[in-house]
């Protein structure tokens, strides 16, 4: 139980970090961490299908797409 509590806390901290970071790459990595922890929570909630989809799509591919887009635009928030 305490494990879940820590995971949720970490997830929320990562989400707040994603909103604070001025460096967009760091923000994207933080958002990817949110997705990854969400995937673990999905697994704990007995949803292995969704956990796989979230890990493969939400954490991996979305991050790649974000990073490509940031490379083609600007890295730092103004």
């Amino acid at each position, binding site marked *: 139980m305490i494990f879940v509590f820590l995971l949720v806390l970490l997830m929320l901290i990562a989400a707040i970090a994603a909103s604070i970071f001025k460096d967009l790459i760091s923000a994207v990595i933080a958002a990817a961490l949110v997705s990854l922890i969400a995937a673990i929570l999905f697994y704990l909630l007995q*949803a*292995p*299908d969704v*956990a*796989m*989809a979230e890990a*493969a*799509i939400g954490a*991996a*591919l979305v991050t*790649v*797409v974000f990073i*490509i*887009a940031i*490379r*083609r635009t600007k890295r730092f928030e103004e």
Partner: protein
Amino acid sequence: MRRIISILLLGIIALGITLSLAKIPFGTPKTKVGRYYIDKGVEETGATNIVTSVVVNYRAFDTLGEVTVLFIAAIGLGAVLTTGRRKKPERKIEPASLVLYTGCRFLFPLILLFGAYIFVHGHLTPGGGFQGGAIVASAFVLTYLGCRERRISERGSKLAESLGGLIFVIVGLVGLAVGGYFLMNFLPKGIPNFLFSAGIIPILYIVIGVKVGSELAGIIDNLIEESE
């Protein structure tokens, strides 16, 4: 100013949702539709993974819509990025090191195989067309990043996308012609827990896997182009 208003707005929404949530206690069974699927799913669809039977049989129409959404995103992205595109300057591609090149050459078919395994076994084990498709797409991402070469032909991916969608609709229409219901599971259900079971579910999941894989790979291909 904007910050304060936003926080105030969020507070009101939070209060309202808490009121509503009090009626939805966590961790207790409360659904009748879900119960029906668990009790009857294996018998009616032949898939042992109930989530798959819901996604590809009971709620297959949603899945058709969702595949369409991804299709729209892929062509919309193409339309947005191609209009007014200037002539591509010749890119200088730094060749990848031998180890990296051989490594990803070696991994590429393995990842493809793994993705295919995931979507072929969608009705038996966790996973299915979307997860498998995403893994297939990540194999292509690997070749872009590792081998620095394009593995996907535009014509091929276009063909895969439209044929995939078309087969999905046609399978549905065959169900309509045979049994009177769109997307009816008209093939024999077979014995649960065998690869060749569950009627149209494996067919649809293979179609979805190929389609999702080529669409996601196409999206990344479109974005990465002329990015240097």
